[in-house]
């Protein structure tokens, strides 16, 4: 997946994307720097909540992948265009679910 740019219309979006990428990576210094920036900007509570979200989705993605669950019917059509545009339909997990 490519690098994300800008805030994407979300306050502090670029900072949070950088934090998520640092959590998913293995560069300890990058993670420490990103963590410090999130704490300075959003406070300790904001940091904890951001960590909780990342921890949740780093696990829930793997449940979806290993159980092979299909995308919910109610979401299939409304998300079709952006899944195509973002290349999500080309993910190996999409081809197998």
């Amino acid at each position, binding site marked *: *997946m490519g690098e*994300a740019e800008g805030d*994407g*219309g*979300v*306050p*502090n*979006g670029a900072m*949070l*994307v950088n*934090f*998520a*990428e640092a*959590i*998913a990576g293995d560069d300890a210094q990058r*993670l*420490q720097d990103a*963590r410090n920036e999130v*704490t300075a900007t*959003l*406070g*300790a*509570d*904001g*940091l*904890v*909540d*951001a*960590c*909780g*979200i*990342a*921890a*949740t*989705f*780093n*696990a*829930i*993605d*793997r*449940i*979806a*992948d*290993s*159980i*092979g*669950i*299909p*995308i*919910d019917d109610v979401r299939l059509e409304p998300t079709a265009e952006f*899944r195509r545009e*973002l290349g*999500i*339909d080309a*993910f*190996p*997990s*999409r081809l*197998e*679910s």
Partner: protein
Amino acid sequence: MTIVSYEDAPVPIRLDLLEAHQRAWQRLASPGTWLTGATRVAIAQEVRNAKQCSLCVERKAALMPYNVTGTHDTVSDLPEAQVELIHRLATDSARLRRNWARELIESGLSEEEYVETVGVACTTISLDTFAYAVGMPSREIPMPVDGDPKKVRPTEAKQGDAWVPWIAPDDASDGDRETFGPGVSNIRRALSLVPAEAHGFFDLVSNQYLSAEQMKDFATKFRAITRAQIELIAGRISAINQCAY
């Protein structure tokens, strides 16, 4: 059993989150529906070991991971199929295939054991990811609790569109309609072949992310960050993991 503490955390951890993590660790080390406490603890140990497994490193780097054969580096006596499941979950879950899952099941890992293993491994991954993200060492895995698994399969579970049987919305019992019934997302029913594992994992989710009710309420701010910020982090993690769901 040792109660997990966050006294060494670099920032205060809110109480409901601490308690949810304590419940998750306790659940992890206790007898499940199909697996003993010792097996569940071994699964957690294998999750942590997977990063150092040379076969997993080689497969992760390969364009065609299924062409790379070999033996996993293990730290447990778990059956080979279960180790394969745990290590692939931990290191390369985006490229899992239906045939791969069925082969593991046909080689002796029951469907129920497969699902419970996924639940335990993903609970471990979630708890360890939180510790890593917040800036503290992974917690010590608790000692296993003695006892026998109940080995009760829900009669309403059937093979559907997923790779393993689950409880379809219309088949959910009265007691499980809120968790697996109509209107509930597929991810919440993913582990429903082992209902206790599904309930346990989503207890963790409710405190780390949002509860099912909170997810539907876009007007209330439940966390210190906004809903848009929450979904941005979730989306970026899922994109990195190449999770289509």
